[in-house]
């Protein structure tokens, strides 16, 4: 292992960051790049959130009042794409950049220049995607799942820019994953065996493998679209011998592992935070690792549960139903372990812990509605209703996003050297918690009552719950401005943080000073 460290010489070994804007442009430092990713993700979160506000404002009352249906479709599509590829995924990559090298005792990521590249192509991808709003025919309007032929035969001309943007996002994710895997596999400190790695590192190792496996499939899908649109092929065009259902198979072969890509790092984060604030060792470490690995493997054989209504044969519907339900077993193991870790612990409820507990409870609710959707005959009723919207927002907002917020509160003292304002943090938590539930819980009911998703107008009987849902969304949206304020305030100053920050914190990142020096573990620490 020592060979790794010796051959890994930076020019700037003994001084801090460069000055000015070029520090950020040319940086190869994992902490700088982590910061860039996190701020970029925050910006995208606010832009995607603003689009959600447009959607909820239009749905505040039945009838069309604020936007045209065409623009509504564009908002819906961009909201999904930006939140998935611009907010959640880069936030996790940013956390990985900051934390993985420190957690495994490595001086930096394995491929620092590629790390710089994988971040700096992202702003271009989203610039291209967002600029399509101002093009003739408008932005992509076919939903984030871009089903053919909506995204091919009937797409606005800007679809080509969308395809290019997705290619760039995919390239960025693939480079990021290669970096994470090489770092974890080859740069761990002596003594850090795989089964001693912190769970966030494990979760990211598995996530990175998932990304390597499915981002090329997404690239393949959009390439086929590009060829259908511009080069006269007929991958998805029935008239030319292709098949639109094939698009859905390819998309969801990517798409289902993708939803686990957006939740596995959250599992790692929740494990660390619950362990720390329960002041107990995590219950069932090995089972946590195996559960994540099983979830990842199973994610490749459940894709068709997104397409129960396309006319699958009975055998396929049964297979995908049972395979999907099987995922509840490892997920149940994880929830059990988190609850058991808290059991008889000396728990304190600082902001990260509040978010982590809310994550466990609300993610479990989202998991249960997922189980309901997995039941094939029931899915025929739920398919394309607001019940589905409620389900995936429960796993993504109080799931992935709450875990990211928890991670920010938990590690920001390590990043900035300052404690955040605990009172404001708790206020942010409660506003977000109430906002998210008021927004999405009623959507279960209106979905079960039959309100279709992706439509800018609705029948009168859904009016009351939609109005409540919109009020919740405005509350949730506004409380994120408070989050921005809290983060900025912490960056500017605050109570100084100790190296260990939290009483019960465990792990290598808490052995270095706060804020973490620009270069950490240039000589590898000894683990046990």
């Amino acid at each position, binding site marked *: 292992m020592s060979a790794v460290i010796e051959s890994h010489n930076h020019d700037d070994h003994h001084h801090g960051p460069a000055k000015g804007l070029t520090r950020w442009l040319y940086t190869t430092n994992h902490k700088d790049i982590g910061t860039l990713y996190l701020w970029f993700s925050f910006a995208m979160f606010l832009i995607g959130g603003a689009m959600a506000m447009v959607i909820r404002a239009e749905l505040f009352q039945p009838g069309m009042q604020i936007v045209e249906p065409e623009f509504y479709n564009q908002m819906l599509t961009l909201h999904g794409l930006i939140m998935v590829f611009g907010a959640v995924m880069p936030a996790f990559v940013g956390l990985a950049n900051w934390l993985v090298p420190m957690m495994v005792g490595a001086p930096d990521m394995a491929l620092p220049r590629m790390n710089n590249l994988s971040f700096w192509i992202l702003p271009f991808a989203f610039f291209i995607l967002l600029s399509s709003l101002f093009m003739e025919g408008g932005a992509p309007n076919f939903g984030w799942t871009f089903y053919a032929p909506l995204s091919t035969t009937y797409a606005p001309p800007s679809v080509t820019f969308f395809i290019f943007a997705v290619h760039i996002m995919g390239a960025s994710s693939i480079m990021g994953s*290669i970096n994470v*895997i090489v770092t974890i596999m080859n*740069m761990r400190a002596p003594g850090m065996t795989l089964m001693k790695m912190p769970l966030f590192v494990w979760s990211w190792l598995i996530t990175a493998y998932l990304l*390597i496996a499915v981002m*090329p*499939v997404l*690239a393949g899908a959009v390439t086929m679209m590009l060829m259908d649109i511009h080069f006269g092929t007929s991958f998805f065009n029935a008239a030319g011998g292709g098949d639109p259902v094939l698009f859905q198979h390819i998309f969801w072969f990517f798409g289902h592992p993708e939803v686990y890509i957006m939740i596995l790092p959250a599992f790692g984060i929740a494990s660390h935070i619950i362990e720390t604030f329960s002041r107990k060792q995590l219950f069932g470490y090995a089972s946590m690792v195996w559960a994540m690995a099983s979830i990842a493997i199973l994610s490749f054989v459940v894709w068709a549960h997104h397409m129960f209504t396309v006319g699958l044969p009975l055998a396929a519907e049964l297979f995908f139903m049972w395979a999907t339900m099987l995922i509840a077993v490892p997920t149940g193991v994880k929830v059990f372990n988190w609850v058991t870790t808290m059991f008889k612990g000396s728990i304190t409820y600082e902001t990260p812990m509040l978010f982590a507990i809310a994550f466990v409870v609300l993610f479990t609710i989202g998991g249960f509605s997922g189980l309901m959707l997995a039941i094939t005959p029931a899915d025929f009723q739920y398919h394309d209703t607001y019940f589905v919207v409620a389900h995936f927002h429960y796993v993504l907002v109080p799931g992935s996003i709450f875990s990211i917020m928890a991670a920010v509160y938990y590690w920001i003292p390590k990043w900035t050297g300052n404690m955040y304002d605990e009172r404001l943090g708790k206020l942010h938590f409660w506003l977000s918690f109430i906002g998210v539930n008021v927004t999405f819980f009623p959507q279960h009911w209106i979905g079960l009552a039959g309100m279709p998703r992706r439509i800018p107008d609705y029948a009168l009987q859904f009016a009351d719950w939609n109005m409540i849902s919109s009020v919740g969304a405005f509350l949730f949206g506004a409380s994120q401005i408070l989050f921005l304020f809290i983060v900025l305030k912490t960056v500017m100053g605050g109570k100084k943080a100790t190296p260990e920050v939290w009483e019960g914190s465990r792990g290598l990142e808490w052995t270095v000073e706060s804020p973490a020096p620009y270069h950490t573990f240039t000589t590898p620490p000894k683990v046990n």
Partner: protein
Amino acid sequence: MNQGSKKTIKTLCFAVLGMFTFSFALVPLYNVFCEVTGLNGKIELRATNDKNIEIDNGRDVSIQFVSHNNEEMPWAFRPSEDNIQIKTGKYHTATFYVKNTTNKRMVAQAIPSVAPSNAAAHLKKLECFCFEQQELAPGEEALLPVRLIFDDELPSSINSVVLSYTIFDVTDYNDVEFSQHHNDDHHAGHEMEPSI
């Protein structure tokens, strides 16, 4: 960078290329899978070359013909007969009436589908208008033949089969995909061809 890292990077790059290739391999795999299992009502868009398919003592099967126009395809398109009784192992010729109701020359492609889907593998065609594109002058009409046969392995539970055709307007991009292959090799399938 040490040897271990280089090896990991190389492996991962191969994995990325492999998965990208796999995404394209999914296309023929999907078609082969559908064809072998008959799922999706997919039926071969090529003539059968099975010489021993004809038998004398077949059983009665009812076959219904259905026609659809895709999207804004303006042509008149309907089967000459809606429902006929045929015997397995005996050839039968059915016809579809088609008329270009517009005042411009148009090219159409018909795509077949069979229900129930497990009958698809047993419905063979010696000749079908769906093997080729149809070009009609303004106002021109035609009777399009399909010569078909059920092989004797048609599952005994199936007594009634629906053969449906959807007609697509391919005027704008004909000569790209289908006609090329049909010129090369008249009825031989290629990987993209047999579908729906």
